[in-house]
């Protein structure tokens, strides 16, 4: 077993465990911390796939900006284990069963795909480097890129308008 295969398994187990802890932990702050660990594990997967730009953006945007926003809102509302809404046992059971059924159906449907023998290239290729992505982003995808700036502007205006005290 090569070092990248070992890293793949370690990162997968870390991602799955911390994702489970996000769903199961009672304290919202702990959920946020576990979600940040999940994002770091997924960024490790990106590095393993040699998508370095996405790995860095994932850490900066998700773990750095979005999760800090979540933490900020949770601390602003002073949510903790006591203020957590009580969970209904039947609702939990039904949710677990339906999520497990979704997992089962997807795995059963995709278990024998033709793609099974295809390899996803590890630690090679220049597709994920910032130079290649940047050239493509500013030539072929320049219109969606500029449209996303309009999206950000409207999201900012919307957030300010909603959050304003009336």
């Amino acid at each position, binding site marked *: 077993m090569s070092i990248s295969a070992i890293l793949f398994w370690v990162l997968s187990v870390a991602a799955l465990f911390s994702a489970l802890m996000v769903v199961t932990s009672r304290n919202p702050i702990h959920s946020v911390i576990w979600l940040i660990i999940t994002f770091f594990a997924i960024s490790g997967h990106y590095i393993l796939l040699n998508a370095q730009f996405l790995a860095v953006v994932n850490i900066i945007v998700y773990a750095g900006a979005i999760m800090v926003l979540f933490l900020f809102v949770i601390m*602003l509302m002073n*949510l903790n284990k006591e203020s957590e809404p009580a969970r209904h046992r039947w609702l939990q059971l039904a949710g677990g069963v339906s*999520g497990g059924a979704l997992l089962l159906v*997807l795995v059963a449907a995709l278990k024998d795909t033709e793609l099974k023998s295809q390899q996803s290239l590890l630690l090679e290729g220049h597709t994920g480097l910032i130079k290649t992505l940047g050239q493509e982003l500013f030539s072929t995808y320049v219109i969606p890129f500029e449209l996303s700036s309009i999206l*950000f502007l409207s999201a900012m205006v919307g957030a300010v308008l909603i959050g304003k005290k009336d």
Partner: protein
Amino acid sequence: MPINYYLFLAIALFSIGVVGVLTRRNAIIIFMCIELMLNAVNLLLVAFSKMHYNQAAAAAIPIANPGIDGQLFVFFIMVVAAAEVSVGLAIIVMLYRNIHSVDINFLNRLKH
């Protein structure tokens, strides 16, 4: 790594996100589970991008940057997720100011 390992990992992460959305009642945790589902899809897109790169390299197909569309799509998903989080958290803060709770069971006023 075979592509189906990534497929099953992404399916498992997505299903955990779905279970979280269905079982939790805290609006912020539900929002975080949606982020988890988005990230599972992102991981799968990057894995498929590298699979296409591998295929094109093996068959010596002369396209420039095979599989780059998947990674750019991940980039745009991150852009949309950031915009979505800012608006969504503003809505949750406004709800908290009105009903002093983040329990989604209090949000059934559209029914009446």
